[in-house]
């Protein structure tokens, strides 16, 4: 996998008492407004995860994933991880899981272009 194709962040997966946090990388060569990025699919151990209640956390801010399309003036710096927080998804700290994440990017200066970036990785929940 090329660096520009990576979507699962180096910080990996962390289990909290009331949810799960997954690090994500932006699969593009430059920063993009969050509104042009889609968290398309997530599966853990082959089971699709409902993203209806998911939150996106970035740089001290947080918003519902469902409202990410409105974030036209919040830029995901290409070198940073953003985090997907999943309330109610409980994993045992130290357990290993196969995480499959797909992030789509729609570069805002190339009309009609959508690139899907899938990645699957075995992660240990911190």
């Amino acid at each position, binding site marked *: 996998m*090329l660096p520009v194709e990576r979507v699962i962040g180096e910080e990996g997966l962390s289990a909290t008492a009331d949810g799960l946090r997954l690090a994500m990388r932006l699969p593009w*060569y430059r920063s993009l407004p969050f*509104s*042009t990025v889609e968290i398309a699919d997530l599966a853990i151990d082959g089971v699709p995860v409902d993203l209806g209640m998911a939150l996106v956390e970035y740089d001290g801010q947080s918003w519902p994933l469902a409202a990410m399309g409105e974030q036209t003036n919040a*830029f995901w710096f*290409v070198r940073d991880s953003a985090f997907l927080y999943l309330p109610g998804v409980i994993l045992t700290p130290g357990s290993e899981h196969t995480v499959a994440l797909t992030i789509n990017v729609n570069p*805002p*200066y190339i009309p009609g272009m959508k690139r899907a970036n899938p990645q699957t990785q075995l992660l240990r929940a911190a």
Partner: protein
Amino acid sequence: MTTTAGAQVGVTLYSFTNPWLTRQFDLEGLLREVSRRGMGPNIEIIGFQSFKEFPDISDAFAEKFKELMTEIGLNPVSCAINSDRFLKPGQQPIDDASLIEYHKRQLRSAKKMGFSLVRYQFALPVELLPQIAPYAEELDIRMGVEVHAPMWAGHPAVQAYGEMYDKLDTPYLGWIPDFGGTASRIPESMLDAARAAGAREGLLDRLKEVWLEPGMSHEKAGRLREWALAEGHAPAHIQAASLAFFILANNDPKSWAALVDRTIHIHGKFYGMGADGQEEAIDYGTILPLFRDGGFAGTMVSEWEGHAYSADDGFEQVEAHQAMCRQIFAG
């Protein structure tokens, strides 16, 4: 700042996209590495790749950046800005006033950090130029639109911009040629990456034929796809092979002659330097003398784009490319 007559050879940090994305370097570390390797002093930086605060750079960051550049002897020549019109996928583009303001924010930031020009994009509708050019003049920063594949000197969009340039008649507007639009062949390193991804030789042979045919890039990509699916090639292999249609075009290398007069900066796009010291796909021996002999006195930045299919860090590639270009510019 180094002031030498004639064309200068510099580098864009975009060449080092791989070590940047893998966090091998932070911005200061990468700039110091470029300086240490003698790849400057003139450099280009993509605002939205390297500056977290972009498009609104703070005074404090700008001061710190300028101090660092002075300390390490680099000269910030070009800041690449973006014409992000489609902020909501599948919906209408942002309105003209917002797009103009978006450009002004980036122009202000580039100026504040000491850049002398910006690279902008054809995604900016040409009819908005009369509302932006006076602002660039006021800030005293030049704007060069990037002529990038599939565009070239004879493309209708380039001609429309040329007509507007004639009308506005200001030295603050110009061209930034990107040589990917006049490649003579598909880089062997790109074909090797497709082979490594599993593409069969028959698919690559057909790719090489279709790439040379007339037509728009997306039409040619569609033509290859249709043929390849019928022949039983896997979609992933077709996708790997089709990259060539979107970043390279085979227009006449000599066609750049028409743009030399208004060229303010150059993207020395390249993919792989061979053991013979030559670029594998783009005929620099034909292209660079057009600019050298035409009196171009700006900077050509080495722009290695092999990171689209290779995990190499780009440093040795850029060193070899710069050596070739300096030799050609020296005549």
